[in-house]
């Protein structure tokens, strides 16, 4: 099972960087670029493209192939596959590669990739064998082989010092590449201050019907870690209520048997940022594999209510949406309500206002421009995606917010989406109220600083 290569495109669909292709026909990568660009151009809704594009054979005797592609900010990464390779393999590699790029260059953009194209080429070479098989994908091991572009390196190279010489001669020191006995951890790390941080990020995904009844809801959690620990620490992380974590997935460093036995995380962490584990929160603790699992019992209450009244008329429509926070003691932040008004929608007129309830004073924002006044709510219309975006920065407990407006369409029957997409954040909060019992570090003598915090985000579809 191997992929054919990778192609990085900028947002105009032109290739920035390509890995070498072993295919006999030089047209092969071009065919794939063309096929994907066509598919993207044909999409009725921007972004709504089949992630696997079928590419017909170039000439008789060739086999048809397919192209997996992922959009990541303004870069699109293509992964052509042929033969009987699972597209999932392609996507898995794409995900890994994007993570590596982020690790190296921070937020991904075509400009940074162009700036560092030589490093990207080296990364491609080290992560992907020319036969299409992934080689070294652990960021810790990679950092030894391909030096991240840092100001320090540039300074050194400007100063004429040859940093690479150390790689060449470093084999005897036990700190060169491939010298660590743990594939995911760099050997011989030293920090003056040892720290380790864990972020528990939980996402609520739910669909609510027009009567406000949740049809499906699930909370998916992720434990993101950032470790800056010297030597080879052996960590043991345990939770007070770990039985609510089901359907877990782990970083390779986690000892699976320890989890199976005592529901504790026992691991030697990689250096730097990594995702320790992913889980689903189930209040009843029943994993989906078990026979008596009932998804309805696992429903998590939605922290807000939406009352909407949408009226569709000839050549347009009007709407009146009220958002009320149902959370006690905490406020919902960065609320974004998205309403797709359908093709051709224009002439949007809205009033975003703060309703009654909660603390603070009400206010009215914007007649036409959509800029929020002092009310903390604003709206904007994305004419490319035909999406009306209503943003509320901070909704205190049980406060209520309102958006009224109208739109018009050229066709007689307007066809907006029948659902509102709501996103929100809740700071220092987890749906599962997962509590860390202890974090014990053995194998090293120092006392590290340990930080743990939670964050909840929501992604709810509210039908009307």
């Amino acid at each position, binding site marked *: 099972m191997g992929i054919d290569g990778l192609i990085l495109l900028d947002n105009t669909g032109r290739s920035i960087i390509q890995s070498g292709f072993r295919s006999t026909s030089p047209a092969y990568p071009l065919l794939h670029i063309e096929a994907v660009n066509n598919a993207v151009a044909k999409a009725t809704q921007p972004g709504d493209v089949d992630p696997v594009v079928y590419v017909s054979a170039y000439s008789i005797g060739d086999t048809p192939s397919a192209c997996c592609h992922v959009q990541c900010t303004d870069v699109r990464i293509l992964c052509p596959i042929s033969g009987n390779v699972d597209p999932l393999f392609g996507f898995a590699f794409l995900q890994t590669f994007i993570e590596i790029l982020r690790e190296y260059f921070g937020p991904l953009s075509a400009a940074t990739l162009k700036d560092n194209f030589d490093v990207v080429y080296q990364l491609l070479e080290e992560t992907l064998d020319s*036969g299409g098989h992934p080689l070294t994908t652990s960021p810790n091991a990679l950092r030894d082989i391909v030096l991240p572009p840092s100001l320090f390196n540039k300074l050194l190279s400007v100063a004429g010092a040859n940093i690479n010489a150390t790689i060449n001669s470093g084999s005897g020191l036990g700190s060169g590449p491939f010298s660590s*006995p743990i594939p995911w951890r760099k050997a011989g790390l030293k920090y003056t201050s040892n720290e380790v941080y864990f972020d528990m990020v939980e996402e609520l995904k739910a*669909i609510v019907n027009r009567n406000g009844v949740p049809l499906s809801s699930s909370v998916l959690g992720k434990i993101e870690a950032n470790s800056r620990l010297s030597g080879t620490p*052996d960590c043991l992380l345990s939770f007070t209520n770990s039985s609510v974590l089901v359907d877990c997935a782990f970083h390779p460093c986690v000892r699976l048997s320890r989890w199976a036995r005592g529901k504790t995380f026992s691991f030697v962490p990689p250096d730097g940022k990594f995702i320790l584990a992913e889980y689903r929160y189930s209040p009843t603790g029943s994993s989906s594999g078990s026979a008596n699992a009932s998804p309805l019992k696992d429903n998590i209450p939605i922290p807000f209510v939406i009352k909407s009244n949408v009226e569709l008329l000839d050549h347009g429509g009007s709407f009146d949406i009220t958002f009320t926070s149902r959370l006690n003691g905490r406020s919902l932040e960065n609320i974004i309500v998205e309403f797709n008004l359908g093709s051709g929608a224009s002439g949007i007129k809205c009033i975003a206002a703060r309703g009654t309830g909660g603390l603070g004073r009400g206010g009215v924002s914007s007649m036409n421009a959509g800029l929020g006044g002092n009310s903390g709510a604003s709206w904007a219309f994305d004419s490319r995606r035909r999406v009306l975006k209503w943003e509320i920065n901070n909704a205190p407990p049980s406060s209520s917010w309102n958006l009224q407006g109208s739109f018009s369409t050229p066709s007689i029957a307007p066809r907006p989406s029948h659902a509102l997409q709501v996103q929100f954040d809740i700071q220092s909060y987890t749906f599962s109220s997962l509590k860390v019992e202890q974090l014990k570090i053995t194998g090293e003598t120092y006392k590290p600083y340990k930080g743990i915090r939670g964050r909840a985000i929501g992604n709810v579809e509210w039908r009307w």
Partner: protein
Amino acid sequence: MAGQQYLNSISENATRLGMRLQETLSEHTRDLAIGRGSGAGYLETGALGDEKTPAMIRKQLDSSSDREKLDAMKRLVALISKGRNASEYFAQVVKNVAAPNLEIRKLVYIYLLRYAEHEPDLALLSINTFQKDLADANPLIRAMALRVLSGIKVPMIGSIVVLAIRKCAADPSPYVRKAAALAVPKCFELDAAHLPTLIQIISTILLRDRSPLSLGSVAVAFQAICPTRLDLIHPHYRRLCRILVDLDEWGQVELMELLLRYARTMLVRPQTNLSERGGEEKHGDEEEIEKDLKLLLDSVEPVFQSRNPAVVLAATKVFFYGAPPSYWPKFVGPVMRLNTNSKEVERVVLVDLLIITRDAPHLFAPHYTRFLVRSDDLTVVKKTKIQLLLRLLTVDNWSAILREFIEYADDMDDTVVSEAIHALGTCSAHVPEAIPSCLTALITMIKSRYDTVVSSAVMVLKYLVQTQLSMGSAFAGTLAQSPLSIIAHLARRIDDIRHAQARACVLWLVGQYAGSEEKASTSGPEGIADWAPDVLRKLAQSFGSEDYLVKLQTITLAAKLFVLSPTDRTINLLCQYIFSLARYDKNYDVRDRGRMLSSLLVGVGLQISGPSAEERGGVVLRKEQVKLVLFEGKSGTIVEKDSFLDDGKLQLGSLGRVTGRPMVMNDALPDWLEKGVESSLRDSEDDARVNAPPVPTAISSAGTTHSQKGIATPPIVLTPGVSTPSSIAAKGQWTDLESFYAEEEKEEAEDDDGDEDEDEDESEEEESSAAESAEETESGSEEGQAESDVIHVH
């Protein structure tokens, strides 16, 4: 005074120093600025206009300064990146292959791999350097040298590559051994004549490898060059199973693929229990599983907890194709977790779920809420989810799923809308209780303002009404509306139904069932339902502006009504009018249909203007015969959407399942052996070692050097630290499951039905062929005629 002077000189010196510093700094920062913007500069030289001439680049490559060389190499790689041909510099680049600077060297390698094919003679110049590098002290250099050496597509060096592979396969560093394994398929591609030597290297050196780092690549090599020589795996099988969990994620995928194929080729088919297939899963049901298959399943189980979607799917594949159905619940949770991974992964995994649910819908039916369509899903995902929900229909959840389908009919995408409405039809075919609510929903949809909704709803209504009528009145009692009243309803709303195909459909329904009203109507012409003639009148009026599909059906409707009521004067006149319009229509299909039907009706007494009526010879049919021709053999047939996915040959994890088209090389998994190969073949000295208490093999991470790590020494320990012995014992925990299950097995009574699996397959095949033939007969119906007419047009 002196002090003053002293101070002055200090300050003077200081300013001078400051200026010096500033000078050097600015010099350096200028360099720095160039360095920072360099990448973009290289890639967009054309725009900036500072493109260097080929001669300058050559000069740079030949210079002694590393910086110049690096600059030139970056320029070349940028040229490659822009799709230009940079092969003219090959000679100069090859000289730098031994550059001490690793960065230059890596760029040289990238260049070499792309152009070596075009300049084989010059490429040979570099071979010597690579051979020297193979003996370098640094494993990174050794691995890189082998990778480039095997990647150069020059057939001449085949035997050198084989030698290099053999050398590296026994390298102390697992990374180099990994590179050796990956070089094997490339060497084979280069020259197939090396196959026997390569197989020998695999079987005698590579497969014996004990490092989890390199074994994944060994599986790659094996699959690539000798996938059928599974007999070579025998002595390693058990060790490979045990080590699976320690492999890196990509290696796990490859190894599971290999082990599954081994199991299907060499092991006995697991015995399954008939009672299990249909109903609820019972854990620990009596099954006979070979010890070695059990070992595989137990080793794969922990792998489900990987974060890599490809690994989870590969593990699912092992369970789905390698384990009896009682094991299947184990992959339910992990596979559903993949669904939340990313929208790309979701799109692929949903297709796998479709394949799994064909055999085991009960596994996922309780979790149907996790497959509800969100309005921000991709269009493909929405459609797949609808298909999947159809598969998961049960007596408990049909009403909820039905409500969902009705909801999806409001989607913004037309294809999703029609898919959802068709799903309503399929839903009521599977669950007869759903028919009343389906009908109510469809009738509301007909009033919709959207063309797609109306046309799809009419199509599904037609299908529903037909099946209802062909089933007789078995369900008539349960319905709020009788099928005929639905047709009547449709007929009255013909003006609102604007979509051509839907309109044609309604016309056909009206014609077909106009005569089947139980009691003859009082107001209208005798023998015809009272709503039918008015439809004909409206269509006669608008005939000229109708789509040709509608015209064809209008003619048919006219003929049918005439046969039903030949004595009615109004109908007679309407018919004559329509037939004469059809006679002069622009579309030849319409003219043909008109001509055929009018001559059919001669025996019934249709008067057709024009002289041809008398002159026409041939057989004249009586009214009863015409009626038979026009009305019979049109009973409703189930039009199951026959997608590529339904043929049952698609495998989990294949490319074809996602593209929906047959892809070449869809190699099927081999079927089980009825009698497996001798299990003692798999015995090896390892087994004895595993049974013995684990030897502490920890290497403390700090003080090890490479020279100590020969292949003979135990694998690199992935769980280092002080607690290593205990953690190895902990990994052994997984094998303990074996005894756990063994105990359960004993408790249950034996009851097996070995041929059940096969029987099921056969019956499935029969069903599908029956469905196909049913479709063929269906083409005789009116709809089919309309479709075949389209073909004539082209």
